[in-house]
Protein backbone atom coordinates (compact mmCIF):
# COMPACT_ATOMS: atom_id res chain seq x y z
CA UNK A 1 0.00 0.00 0.00
CA UNK A 2 1.41 3.39 -0.94
CA UNK A 3 1.30 6.11 1.63
CA UNK A 4 0.75 9.64 0.47
CA UNK A 5 3.42 11.94 1.88
CA UNK A 6 2.60 15.52 2.67
CA UNK A 7 5.26 18.12 3.32
CA UNK A 8 4.52 20.34 6.25
CA UNK A 9 6.43 23.28 7.59
CA UNK A 10 7.42 23.23 11.25
CA UNK A 11 4.84 25.88 12.02
CA UNK A 12 2.05 23.91 10.38
CA UNK A 13 3.13 20.89 12.36
CA UNK A 14 2.16 22.64 15.53
CA UNK A 15 -1.42 23.17 14.49
CA UNK A 16 -3.97 20.76 15.88
CA UNK A 17 -6.17 20.67 12.82
CA UNK A 18 -3.60 20.17 10.07
CA UNK A 19 -1.99 17.35 12.02
CA UNK A 20 -5.27 15.54 12.25
CA UNK A 21 -5.74 16.00 8.51
CA UNK A 22 -2.25 14.56 7.97
CA UNK A 23 -3.11 11.54 10.12
CA UNK A 24 -6.22 10.94 8.06
CA UNK A 25 -4.16 10.99 4.88
CA UNK A 26 -1.35 8.78 6.12
CA UNK A 27 -3.26 6.16 7.99
CA UNK A 28 -4.98 3.17 6.45
CA UNK A 29 -8.60 3.96 5.73
CA UNK A 30 -10.57 2.90 8.76
CA UNK A 31 -13.99 4.30 9.45
CA UNK A 32 -13.54 7.04 12.10
CA UNK A 33 -16.42 5.64 14.12
CA UNK A 34 -14.88 2.15 14.07
CA UNK A 35 -11.56 3.60 15.11
CA UNK A 36 -13.08 5.54 18.00
CA UNK A 37 -15.09 2.50 19.10
CA UNK A 38 -12.00 0.35 19.09
CA UNK A 39 -10.06 3.02 21.02
CA UNK A 40 -12.85 3.38 23.59
CA UNK A 41 -13.10 -0.39 24.01
CA UNK A 42 -9.35 -0.69 24.55
CA UNK A 43 -9.39 2.20 27.01
CA UNK A 44 -12.13 0.55 29.03
CA UNK A 45 -10.06 -2.61 29.42
CA UNK A 46 -7.15 -0.49 30.61
CA UNK A 47 -4.95 -0.86 27.54
CA UNK A 48 -1.86 1.28 28.08
CA UNK A 49 -1.19 1.64 24.34
CA UNK A 50 -4.71 3.00 23.85
CA UNK A 51 -4.02 5.62 26.52
CA UNK A 52 -0.87 6.68 24.67
CA UNK A 53 -2.87 6.86 21.43
CA UNK A 54 -5.50 9.00 23.13
CA UNK A 55 -2.83 11.46 24.27
CA UNK A 56 -1.32 11.61 20.78
CA UNK A 57 -4.67 12.31 19.17
CA UNK A 58 -6.08 14.78 21.65
CA UNK A 59 -3.42 16.59 23.65
CA UNK A 60 -3.09 19.52 21.24
CA UNK A 61 -6.83 19.84 20.82
CA UNK A 62 -7.37 19.86 24.58
CA UNK A 63 -4.54 22.34 25.16
CA UNK A 64 -5.93 24.71 22.52
CA UNK A 65 -9.46 24.24 23.84
CA UNK A 66 -8.28 25.40 27.26
CA UNK A 67 -6.33 28.29 25.74
CA UNK A 68 -9.43 29.32 23.80
CA UNK A 69 -11.44 29.25 27.01
CA UNK A 70 -9.12 31.98 28.23
CA UNK A 71 -6.44 30.22 30.30
CA UNK A 72 -2.85 31.35 29.96
CA UNK A 73 -0.16 29.06 28.52
CA UNK A 74 1.07 27.67 31.84
CA UNK A 75 -2.41 27.10 33.22
CA UNK A 76 -3.48 25.46 29.97
CA UNK A 77 -0.57 23.03 30.11
CA UNK A 78 -1.30 22.17 33.73
CA UNK A 79 -5.02 21.80 33.04
CA UNK A 80 -4.36 19.62 29.99
CA UNK A 81 -2.35 17.26 32.17
CA UNK A 82 -5.06 17.36 34.82
CA UNK A 83 -7.73 16.62 32.23
CA UNK A 84 -5.95 13.48 31.09
CA UNK A 85 -5.35 12.43 34.70
CA UNK A 86 -9.06 12.81 35.38
CA UNK A 87 -9.83 10.92 32.19
CA UNK A 88 -7.71 7.95 33.35
CA UNK A 89 -9.50 7.93 36.69
CA UNK A 90 -12.96 8.10 35.18
CA UNK A 91 -12.39 5.84 32.22
CA UNK A 92 -15.21 3.55 33.36
CA UNK A 93 -17.68 6.37 32.61
CA UNK A 94 -16.74 6.24 28.93
CA UNK A 95 -19.64 4.63 27.10
CA UNK A 96 -18.53 4.04 23.51
CA UNK A 97 -16.42 5.48 20.74
CA UNK A 98 -19.21 7.77 19.63
CA UNK A 99 -19.06 9.65 22.90
CA UNK A 100 -15.25 9.74 23.15
CA UNK A 101 -14.89 13.28 21.79
CA UNK A 102 -17.66 14.74 23.92
CA UNK A 103 -16.52 12.88 27.02
CA UNK A 104 -12.91 14.07 26.85
CA UNK A 105 -13.95 17.66 26.18
CA UNK A 106 -16.41 17.46 29.08
CA UNK A 107 -13.62 16.30 31.40
CA UNK A 108 -11.46 19.22 30.21
CA UNK A 109 -14.39 21.64 30.49
CA UNK A 110 -15.01 20.56 34.08
CA UNK A 111 -11.34 20.97 34.95
CA UNK A 112 -11.49 24.47 33.48
CA UNK A 113 -14.68 25.29 35.37
CA UNK A 114 -13.09 24.23 38.68
CA UNK A 115 -10.04 26.35 37.89
CA UNK A 116 -12.14 29.47 37.29
CA UNK A 117 -14.06 28.78 40.49
CA UNK A 118 -10.79 28.61 42.43
CA UNK A 119 -9.34 31.69 40.72
CA UNK A 120 -12.26 34.07 40.73
CA UNK A 121 -11.36 37.44 39.30
CA UNK A 122 -8.44 36.17 37.23
CA UNK A 123 -8.40 37.80 33.81
CA UNK A 124 -8.77 35.69 30.70
CA UNK A 125 -5.73 35.41 28.49
CA UNK A 126 -5.74 35.86 24.73
CA UNK A 127 -4.05 33.79 22.10
CA UNK A 128 -1.42 35.48 20.03
CA UNK A 129 -2.45 33.47 16.97
CA UNK A 130 -1.13 33.39 13.45
CA UNK A 131 -1.92 35.43 10.40
CA UNK A 132 -5.13 34.26 8.88
CA UNK A 133 -4.69 32.77 5.43
CA UNK A 134 -6.57 35.03 3.08
CA UNK A 135 -7.41 34.25 -0.52
CA UNK A 136 -8.20 37.82 -1.51
CA UNK A 137 -5.45 39.87 -3.11
CA UNK A 138 -6.71 43.31 -2.23
CA UNK A 139 -4.65 44.69 0.65
CA UNK A 140 -7.50 46.84 2.00
CA UNK A 141 -9.87 43.87 2.16
CA UNK A 142 -7.27 41.87 3.99
CA UNK A 143 -6.67 44.61 6.55
CA UNK A 144 -10.40 45.05 7.12
CA UNK A 145 -10.90 41.29 7.42
CA UNK A 146 -8.08 41.01 9.94
CA UNK A 147 -9.56 43.84 11.96
CA UNK A 148 -12.91 42.09 12.01
CA UNK A 149 -11.23 38.87 13.02
CA UNK A 150 -9.45 40.66 15.84
CA UNK A 151 -12.77 42.21 16.95
CA UNK A 152 -14.37 38.79 16.84
CA UNK A 153 -11.61 37.19 18.93
CA UNK A 154 -12.01 39.91 21.54
CA UNK A 155 -15.78 39.63 21.46
CA UNK A 156 -15.58 35.85 21.98
CA UNK A 157 -13.19 36.41 24.89
CA UNK A 158 -15.67 38.84 26.49
CA UNK A 159 -18.63 36.44 26.30
CA UNK A 160 -19.86 34.87 29.54
CA UNK A 161 -18.14 31.53 30.07
CA UNK A 162 -21.11 29.34 29.07
CA UNK A 163 -21.66 31.20 25.81
CA UNK A 164 -17.95 31.36 25.09
CA UNK A 165 -17.75 27.59 25.58
CA UNK A 166 -20.48 26.97 22.98
CA UNK A 167 -18.65 29.06 20.36
CA UNK A 168 -15.32 27.44 21.18
CA UNK A 169 -16.72 23.90 21.07
CA UNK A 170 -18.77 24.20 17.92
CA UNK A 171 -16.99 26.74 15.74
CA UNK A 172 -13.40 26.63 16.91
CA UNK A 173 -12.95 23.02 18.04
CA UNK A 174 -15.35 22.07 15.24
CA UNK A 175 -17.33 19.49 17.18
CA UNK A 176 -20.79 18.55 15.97
CA UNK A 177 -23.81 19.92 17.84
CA UNK A 178 -24.33 16.53 19.53
CA UNK A 179 -20.68 16.27 20.58
CA UNK A 180 -20.60 19.88 21.72
CA UNK A 181 -23.77 19.44 23.78
CA UNK A 182 -22.28 16.31 25.34
CA UNK A 183 -19.06 18.19 26.06
CA UNK A 184 -20.97 21.08 27.64
CA UNK A 185 -23.04 18.62 29.68
CA UNK A 186 -26.33 19.93 28.31
CA UNK A 187 -29.09 18.73 26.03
CA UNK A 188 -28.86 19.55 22.36
CA UNK A 189 -31.79 21.98 22.59
CA UNK A 190 -30.16 23.90 25.42
CA UNK A 191 -26.89 23.97 23.55
CA UNK A 192 -28.51 25.31 20.37
CA UNK A 193 -30.29 28.00 22.33
CA UNK A 194 -27.01 29.06 23.98
CA UNK A 195 -25.32 29.06 20.59
CA UNK A 196 -27.99 31.38 19.19
CA UNK A 197 -27.59 33.71 22.16
CA UNK A 198 -23.83 33.71 21.68
CA UNK A 199 -24.16 34.45 17.95
CA UNK A 200 -26.59 37.28 18.63
CA UNK A 201 -24.18 38.79 21.15
CA UNK A 202 -21.28 38.51 18.69
CA UNK A 203 -23.28 40.07 15.85
CA UNK A 204 -23.90 43.10 18.02
CA UNK A 205 -20.25 43.48 18.91
CA UNK A 206 -18.56 42.85 15.56
CA UNK A 207 -19.13 45.49 12.91
Amino acid at each position, binding site marked *: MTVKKVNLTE*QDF*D*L*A*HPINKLRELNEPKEHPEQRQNSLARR*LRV*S*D*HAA*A*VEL*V*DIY*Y*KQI*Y*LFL*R*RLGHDRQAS*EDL*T*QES*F*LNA*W*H*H*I*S*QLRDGKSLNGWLYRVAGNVSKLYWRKHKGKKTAT*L*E*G*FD*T*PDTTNAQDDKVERNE*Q*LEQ*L*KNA*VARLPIKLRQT*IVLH*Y*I*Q*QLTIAESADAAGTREGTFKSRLNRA*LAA*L*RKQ*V*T
Partner: protein
Amino acid sequence: MGKEELKELLNKLPVATTEPVRPGLAEDIKRQIPQKLSPHRGGINTINIIIDFRINKLAAAAAIIITIIFCATFLGGRDSTGGSVLQDSMLLIKYLGAADASVISAGRSKYEHLLERGEDVVWYGDRLSPKDSNAVLMQRKLDDGMYEVMFIDGREKQVTTEELLQLLTRMLQKKAK
Protein backbone atom coordinates in the same frame (compact mmCIF):
# COMPACT_ATOMS: atom_id res chain seq x y z
CA MET B 1 -22.95 42.13 10.79
CA GLY B 2 -24.93 39.53 8.85
CA LYS B 3 -25.41 36.03 10.17
CA GLU B 4 -23.67 34.34 7.26
CA GLU B 5 -20.80 36.81 7.34
CA LEU B 6 -20.33 36.15 11.04
CA LYS B 7 -20.34 32.40 10.50
CA GLU B 8 -17.80 32.76 7.73
CA LEU B 9 -15.60 34.77 10.06
CA LEU B 10 -16.10 32.27 12.87
CA ASN B 11 -14.90 29.50 10.59
CA LYS B 12 -11.58 31.31 10.35
CA LEU B 13 -11.12 31.31 14.12
CA PRO B 14 -9.69 27.76 14.39
CA VAL B 15 -6.59 28.95 12.52
CA ALA B 16 -6.62 32.49 13.88
CA THR B 17 -6.62 31.24 17.48
CA THR B 18 -3.94 28.60 17.17
CA GLU B 19 -0.49 28.62 18.65
CA PRO B 20 2.40 26.20 18.88
CA VAL B 21 2.08 23.59 21.59
CA ARG B 22 5.14 22.73 23.65
CA PRO B 23 6.47 19.49 22.15
CA GLY B 24 7.26 17.94 25.53
CA LEU B 25 3.68 18.24 26.75
CA ALA B 26 2.58 14.93 25.26
CA GLU B 27 5.50 13.13 26.90
CA ASP B 28 4.69 14.74 30.26
CA ILE B 29 1.14 13.48 30.01
CA LYS B 30 2.19 10.01 28.87
CA ARG B 31 4.52 9.69 31.86
CA GLN B 32 1.48 10.10 34.11
CA ILE B 33 -0.53 7.27 32.56
CA PRO B 34 -1.09 4.81 35.38
CA GLN B 35 -0.21 1.16 34.85
CA LYS B 36 -3.86 0.24 35.37
CA LEU B 37 -6.15 2.95 34.10
CA SER B 38 -9.16 2.60 36.35
CA PRO B 39 -10.29 -0.59 37.99
CA HIS B 40 -14.05 -0.82 38.18
CA ARG B 41 -14.97 0.42 41.63
CA GLY B 42 -18.63 -0.24 42.19
CA GLY B 43 -19.04 1.76 45.38
CA ILE B 44 -17.08 4.79 44.30
CA ASN B 45 -18.80 4.78 40.93
CA THR B 46 -22.21 4.67 42.59
CA ILE B 47 -21.29 7.70 44.67
CA ASN B 48 -19.98 9.46 41.55
CA ILE B 49 -23.18 8.71 39.66
CA ILE B 50 -25.22 10.05 42.57
CA ILE B 51 -23.09 13.20 42.65
CA ASP B 52 -23.31 13.50 38.84
CA PHE B 53 -27.09 13.33 38.96
CA ARG B 54 -27.05 16.03 41.66
CA ILE B 55 -29.37 14.10 43.94
CA ASN B 56 -29.61 15.89 47.24
CA LYS B 57 -27.71 14.76 50.28
CA LEU B 58 -30.67 13.00 51.91
CA ALA B 59 -31.51 11.00 48.80
CA ALA B 60 -27.84 10.11 48.37
CA ALA B 61 -27.67 8.91 51.99
CA ALA B 62 -30.84 6.88 51.48
CA ALA B 63 -29.39 5.25 48.36
CA ILE B 64 -26.21 4.33 50.22
CA ILE B 65 -28.17 2.95 53.18
CA ILE B 66 -30.42 0.87 50.94
CA THR B 67 -27.30 -0.55 49.26
CA ILE B 68 -25.79 -1.41 52.67
CA ILE B 69 -28.99 -3.05 53.92
CA PHE B 70 -29.41 -4.90 50.63
CA CYS B 71 -25.85 -6.25 50.77
CA ALA B 72 -26.09 -7.14 54.46
CA THR B 73 -29.35 -9.01 53.91
CA PHE B 74 -28.14 -10.96 50.92
CA LEU B 75 -24.75 -11.80 52.37
CA GLY B 76 -26.67 -13.41 55.22
CA GLY B 77 -24.65 -11.89 58.01
CA ARG B 78 -27.10 -9.59 59.72
CA ASP B 79 -30.77 -9.13 60.22
CA SER B 80 -31.58 -5.94 58.39
CA THR B 81 -34.12 -4.83 60.97
CA GLY B 82 -32.49 -6.53 63.94
CA GLY B 83 -30.56 -3.59 65.24
CA SER B 84 -26.96 -3.14 64.19
CA VAL B 85 -27.42 -2.42 60.50
CA LEU B 86 -30.32 -0.12 61.26
CA GLN B 87 -28.36 1.62 63.99
CA ASP B 88 -25.35 2.06 61.71
CA SER B 89 -27.65 3.47 59.05
CA MET B 90 -29.14 5.96 61.48
CA LEU B 91 -25.70 7.08 62.60
CA LEU B 92 -24.76 7.48 58.95
CA ILE B 93 -27.85 9.58 58.32
CA LYS B 94 -26.94 11.75 61.29
CA TYR B 95 -23.33 12.02 60.15
CA LEU B 96 -24.44 13.15 56.72
CA GLY B 97 -26.49 15.85 58.34
CA ALA B 98 -29.82 14.57 57.12
CA ALA B 99 -32.99 15.46 58.95
CA ASP B 100 -33.84 13.71 62.21
CA ALA B 101 -37.20 12.96 60.66
CA SER B 102 -35.41 10.22 58.73
CA VAL B 103 -34.38 8.58 62.01
CA ILE B 104 -37.99 8.64 63.18
CA SER B 105 -39.24 7.10 59.95
CA ALA B 106 -36.53 4.41 60.07
CA GLY B 107 -37.50 3.68 63.70
CA ARG B 108 -41.13 3.51 62.66
CA SER B 109 -40.28 0.85 60.06
CA LYS B 110 -38.57 -1.20 62.74
CA TYR B 111 -41.54 -0.76 65.08
CA GLU B 112 -43.97 -1.99 62.42
CA HIS B 113 -41.75 -4.93 61.63
CA LEU B 114 -41.55 -5.93 65.31
CA LEU B 115 -45.30 -5.48 65.69
CA GLU B 116 -45.90 -7.82 62.77
CA ARG B 117 -43.69 -10.39 64.47
CA GLY B 118 -45.97 -10.13 67.50
CA GLU B 119 -43.46 -8.46 69.82
CA ASP B 120 -44.58 -6.34 72.76
CA VAL B 121 -43.62 -2.86 71.51
CA VAL B 122 -44.82 0.68 72.24
CA TRP B 123 -44.25 3.58 69.85
CA TYR B 124 -43.81 7.16 71.16
CA GLY B 125 -42.53 8.73 67.94
CA ASP B 126 -45.78 10.47 66.98
CA ARG B 127 -45.58 12.86 69.92
CA LEU B 128 -41.87 13.63 69.91
CA SER B 129 -39.82 16.56 68.80
CA PRO B 130 -36.68 15.52 66.88
CA LYS B 131 -34.69 18.13 68.84
CA ASP B 132 -34.87 16.17 72.12
CA SER B 133 -31.93 13.76 71.85
CA ASN B 134 -32.84 11.77 75.01
CA ALA B 135 -36.46 11.18 74.07
CA VAL B 136 -37.56 7.54 73.87
CA LEU B 137 -38.79 6.65 70.42
CA MET B 138 -39.86 3.10 71.11
CA GLN B 139 -39.82 0.46 73.83
CA ARG B 140 -39.75 -3.26 73.37
CA LYS B 141 -40.28 -5.82 76.13
CA LEU B 142 -37.65 -8.56 76.18
CA ASP B 143 -38.15 -12.17 77.33
CA ASP B 144 -36.13 -11.69 80.55
CA GLY B 145 -38.40 -8.86 81.77
CA MET B 146 -36.03 -6.10 80.68
CA TYR B 147 -36.93 -3.42 78.13
CA GLU B 148 -35.02 -2.40 75.05
CA VAL B 149 -35.48 1.30 74.35
CA MET B 150 -34.60 3.15 71.20
CA PHE B 151 -33.78 6.84 71.55
CA ILE B 152 -34.55 9.44 68.95
CA ASP B 153 -30.87 9.75 68.01
CA GLY B 154 -30.76 6.07 67.05
CA ARG B 155 -29.09 4.74 70.23
CA GLU B 156 -30.46 1.54 71.77
CA LYS B 157 -30.17 0.52 75.41
CA GLN B 158 -31.50 -2.27 77.63
CA VAL B 159 -33.12 -0.95 80.81
CA THR B 160 -35.05 -2.27 83.77
CA THR B 161 -38.70 -1.38 84.40
CA GLU B 162 -37.67 1.32 86.91
CA GLU B 163 -35.20 2.89 84.53
CA LEU B 164 -37.79 2.90 81.78
CA LEU B 165 -40.27 4.63 84.07
CA GLN B 166 -37.67 7.26 84.92
CA LEU B 167 -36.92 7.86 81.24
CA LEU B 168 -40.59 8.21 80.36
CA THR B 169 -41.30 10.48 83.34
CA ARG B 170 -38.36 12.72 82.39
CA MET B 171 -39.66 12.83 78.84
CA LEU B 172 -43.17 13.81 79.97
CA GLN B 173 -41.80 16.48 82.33
CA LYS B 174 -39.80 18.05 79.47
CA LYS B 175 -42.86 18.01 77.30
CA ALA B 176 -44.98 19.63 80.03
CA LYS B 177 -42.47 22.52 80.26
